[in-house]
């Protein structure tokens, strides 16, 4: 699984639709103070299911919507999409446990032309393993917030709940409070945390 692309529109200072393609091993984001670099990190945290406005440096969640500038009017919606490559890791033939007449298979050898003589319906399932439990090569996760307070969460265009997004990333090491995102100014936080908080971070990796 690989984070391939980030698309922001109306999120914080990104009034216009902006894309970041992550197609290199180490990507640097540079630029003067106050231009929007850390807003990119906030966008990723937000779409991964962040629920606290404070941890996105705002006072209310509505603060993530572009609030206008000297030359632009405020917008009505903030939208962020993360696009993941989600290739097949391996395929394996698993016989779905729900096949009731499991034992009949042993007796009835398939005849050469491949037709089983038995009466039981055989449910052979081709189960594919992917890092994200969605059976597509590409997974798009979207979060939207409208200025009237309505939220939308989508996985590959299908509406889901925030909980579904958080569950999608369980056990992958990605998440809003995992060890994979170090926010600005918080680099020493892992060290200065109390012993119980350090334990929680390690449990995330277990």
């Amino acid at each position, binding site marked *: 699984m690989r984070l391939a692309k980030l698309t922001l529109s109306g999120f914080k200072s990104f009034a216009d639709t902006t894309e970041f393609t992550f197609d290199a091993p180490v990507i640097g984001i540079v*630029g003067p103070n106050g231009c929007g670099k850390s807003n990119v990190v906030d966008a990723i945290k937000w779409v991964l299911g962040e629920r606290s406005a404070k941890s996105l440096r705002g006072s209310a969640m509505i603060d993530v919507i572009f609030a206008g500038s000297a030359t632009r009017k405020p917008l009505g919606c903030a939208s962020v999409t993360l696009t993941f490559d989600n290739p097949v890791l391996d395929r394996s033939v698993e016989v779905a446990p729900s096949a009731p007449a499991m034992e009949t298979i042993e007796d009835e050898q398939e005849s050469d032309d491949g037709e089983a003589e038995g009466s039981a319906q055989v449910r052979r399932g081709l189960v594919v393993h992917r890092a994200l439990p969605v059976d597509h090569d590409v997974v798009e996760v979207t979060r939207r917030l409208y200025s009237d307070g309505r939220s939308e969460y989508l996985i590959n265009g299908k509406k889901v709940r925030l909980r579904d997004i958080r569950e999608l990333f369980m056990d992958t090491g990605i998440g809003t409070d995992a060890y994979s995102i170090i926010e600005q100014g918080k680099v020493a936080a892992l060290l200065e945390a109390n012993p119980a908080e350090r334990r929680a971070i390690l449990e995330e990796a277990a």
Partner: protein
Amino acid sequence: SRVRFEETFNAVRTNFGGTDGMFRRLFGGGSADMFLVPDEEGNVDWLASGIEIRAKPPGKEPRVISQLSGGEKSMTTVALLLAIFQSKPAPFCILDEVDAALDEANTERFASSLHGFLDRSHFIVITHHKRTMQHCHKLYGVTMPQRGVSRRVAVRFEQVGNDGRLSKDAVE
């Protein structure tokens, strides 16, 4: 589950404080360790005890990690993070100005340490340090040609001026 936590803890401990661990690699020596904090009676509980960290830069004897300098704390944190990565790499990692407190020599050590993890993960690094930029395979500039509105441009290292501004031809 207790077994999984114990395995992860022991793996990270070696990756962090072992003789060939991340701490010694980033500091060029010294020693570090992590252990479970015993309760009042001295018992350790794999399912509940907190984690304490010890870190001694080469030639020094700090009693507690709070005595470390700003730069030493950043480097120790990066060592711990990469030690966790070794036992369970997340698909990607975002680092927002973790090099802010580092001098040039440590910035160089930090940025080059990332290259050992690219088989399993990729990194997104926000920085103002030229040394870190030199270790990036690709650079994105974020500027505000219109005040208050962010715009993304692709930049090459040479287009990042000494004053941190992005050169004109990159911004178009």
